[in-house]
């Protein structure tokens, strides 16, 4: 598999040129003018602040511009520059250069500036202001919400460029072109559904498309609906989970859980899915899972006792409990790709097979008078041994238990065909030799055959219903 294939689609399909960027004409024009002014030596303002809803193209614009002009991007996101020392380190890089002719031009990008907390990341904002003042390279700040009072000084120091929320048509256009590049079969209504759910967030729309496309091989309304039901509306769930994991303080992690309308019993699945990608250190992973399993215990107690007061403890453990368990900073702030809860995908994918398994378990449970879970753990494994190793005997059992073809195939992947054919041969043989119609008399009395009792059971179950009716 080539590397390009493994790249997440949001990266694979990043625009390479500014004009490939969908919509945002006004922002593009202003940004190009500003960038040109830098290279003509007289920038009006040394920094721009790109702002707008998530997935509207802010990062993409900067990257496309850098690619087009051959500029080196120096990027940091909120988790990297929580401390003023970190920012000073960039500041050094940014004030250097320029003097060397061979040096490529650079753009400094600070993402998620609205994520910098005025109190917790003491001095960080001041350091950014310093950076802007002293830089010899263009500085781009990016934020979703620039109107936070704490960012007032930054706003003054920057040229403000607004990104509009993308329309459904914009989003669908991009999705359609990705589908054709990936040779992916896509239903138009499915794309509409994704675009609708994304509410202008192209990044999340592409992530959704990828999750469905890779999970199912085609994008239909049914698969999309199955997978995206859990999707969060106003804040990308991936961002929420990331926020929980990289939080330094308990309050940050807890706050993150309020930024999604995902219920705690859903949220815990997302944290569970992605935790091992962020907590690579075995000690961290164990601590975090201990916290997560405690959260799960609280959730189960809520279900059992109906005591909803316990909910906040469950949320504490799945957010702050997890965040503070991850101590190894090498992994904590490393950017990794997050995923949909795999189990949801697996469940959708295996629905038919599971249905067969449940039907089979119920059928055998009624024969053996035990529970379906006993059948699954204690009977089906042995049946599989028989079906894998002795097709002829398996065919007799299949006839005796009246198994369907899909049940037979469930019991033996390798010999399924052989057994099904054998069953068919036996059936024909029975048809030839057997008497049609009144069958029971042909079963020898000496054999402890359950055919007779079986028949009675059916009759008696009907009798029971009559019994009920009579009595009521």
């Amino acid at each position, binding site marked *: 598999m080539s590397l390009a294939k493994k790249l997440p689609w949001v990266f694979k399909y990043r625009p390479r040129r500014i004009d490939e960027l969908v919509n945002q004409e006004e922002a593009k024009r202003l940004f190009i003018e500003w960038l040109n002014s830098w290279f003509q030596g007289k920038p009006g303002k040394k920094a721009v602040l790109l702002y707008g809803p998530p997935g509207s193209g802010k990062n993409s614009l900067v990257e496309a511009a850098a690619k087009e002009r051959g500029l080196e991007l120096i990027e940091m996101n909120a988790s990297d520059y929580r401390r003023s020392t970190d920012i000073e380190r960039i500041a050094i890089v940014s004030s250097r250069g320029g003097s060397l002719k061979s040096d490529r031009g650079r753009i400094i990008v600070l993402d998620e500036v609205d994520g910098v907390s005025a109190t917790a990341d003491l001095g960080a904002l001041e350091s950014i202001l310093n950076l802007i003042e002293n830089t010899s390279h263009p500085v781009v700040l990016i934020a979703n919400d620039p109107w936070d009072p704490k960012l007032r000084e930054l706003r003054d120091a920057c040229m403000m460029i607004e990104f509009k929320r993308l329309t459904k048509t914009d989003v669908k256009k991009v999705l359609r072109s990705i589908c054709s590049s990936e040779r992916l079969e896509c239903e138009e209504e499915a794309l509409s559904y994704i675009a609708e759910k994304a509410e202008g967030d192209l990044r999340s729309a592409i992530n959704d498309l990828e999750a469905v496309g890779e999970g199912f091989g085609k994008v239909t309304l049914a698969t999309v609906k199955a997978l995206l039901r859990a999707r969060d509306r106003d804040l990308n769930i991936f961002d929420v989970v990331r926020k929980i994991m990289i939080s330094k303080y308990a309050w940050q992690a807890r706050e993150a859980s309020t930024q999604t309308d995902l219920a705690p019993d859903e949220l815990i699945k997302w944290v569970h899915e992605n935790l091992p990608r962020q907590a690579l250190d075995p000690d961290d992973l164990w601590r975090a899972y201990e916290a*997560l399993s405690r959260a799960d*215990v609280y959730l189960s107690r809520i279900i059992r006792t109906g005591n909803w007061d316990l909910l906040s403890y469950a949320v504490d453990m799945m957010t702050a409990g997890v965040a503070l368990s991850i101590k190894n900073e090498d992994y904590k702030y490393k950017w990794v790709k997050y995923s949909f809860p795999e189990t949801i995908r697996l469940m959708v994918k295996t629905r038919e097979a599971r249905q067969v398994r449940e039907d089979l378990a119920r059928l055998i449970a009624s024969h053996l008078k035990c529970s379906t879970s006993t059948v699954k753990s204690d009977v089906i*494994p042995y049946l599989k041994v028989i079906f894998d190793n002795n097709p002829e005997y398996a065919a007799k059992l299949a006839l005796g238990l009246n198994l369907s073809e899909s049940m037979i195939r469930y019991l033996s992947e390798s010999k399924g065909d052989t057994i099904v054919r054998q069953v068919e041969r036996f059936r024909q043989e029975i048809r030839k030799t057997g008497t049609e119609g009144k069958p029971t008399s042909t*079963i020898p009395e000496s054999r402890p055959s359950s055919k007779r009792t079986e028949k009675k059971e059916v009759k008696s179950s009907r009798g029971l219903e009559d019994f009920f009716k009579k009595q009521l």
Partner: protein
Amino acid sequence: MREQDYSGVLMSSRGVLTELLWAEKYRPKSLQEMVNQEDIVKRLQVFVKEKNMPHLLFAGPPGTGKTTAAHALAHDLYGEDYRLYMLELNASDERGIDVIRTKVKEFSRSKLPVGVPFKIVLLDEADNMTADAQQALRRLMEMYVDVTRFILIANYPSKIIEPIQSRCAVFRFTSLKREDVVARLKWICSHEKVVCDDKGLDAIYEVSGGDMRRAINILQASAALGEVNLSNVYKVVGLATPAEVRALLKTALFEGDFLKSRDTLRKLMVTYGLSGVDIVKQLHREIFSSEVPIPEEIRVEIADYLGEVQYRLVEGADDEIQLSALLAKLVLLGKTLRQQPPPARPSKR
């Protein structure tokens, strides 16, 4: 209630071309056919003779004849059509309070048919019933005792609430003795004209732990491989234990690959349909196997945590999250193991 297609084709068989599970085929139909639990059988036969009985609680390990005894008792009381007068529920599959309030209540209070002393409600795996369902049940047992008797079946009678226990005559089924199991298996083999040897039958007893149903299942699978001998029995047991359970230990403990082991876990749950408790129990068997080279003190540490996980699962916690926590624990415990080469397999003393 079961619905099956009894087509003429199948029924016209002479029995040669169809086969059943032996656990069903050789299940005793009446009390006198039961070959073990003699004391219990004798007491139950008294109930049949007097056409009267209290509420009953059958307790004991799986595969010791509890369900069989209940059906045989009903059979002896009412004859072949005993299922007309008995409501069977498996509480593992229908364990909620709704079932008690609707199905069970409706049946319990219905009037007695002529000539029948009482109806029977059979609640199998009753220890899996929720606490409030048990409370509701207790009321029904009091209110309709004149027309309906309950037989509750449980592996762990302690999980049945005290007031119900005190209303029942408790019958404790004991693990089957080796000679009883072996004799029964031999008897089945002679009926089926299957070649078997003592070592093979002994091995079946060992691996089934006195659980007759499991023993018969293993017997039938071994017979399907040709004959019932030691090597076939071990082959069956090996094939029937999903290799993935041992793979969980390998990838988590020895390789430290959490993500891979979690994928395996999901396969076990989604594809095989195993419950979290099933997996915990199978892991428990694995960690004490001499074929798995774990330092002794770590075996104990894992066992301790397995116990904690099982408790949480029984309380209602989520299978996947609790077992993932277990895998994280294994990855951590294995950290020191992975730094040194795995110890050689202990030689047999």
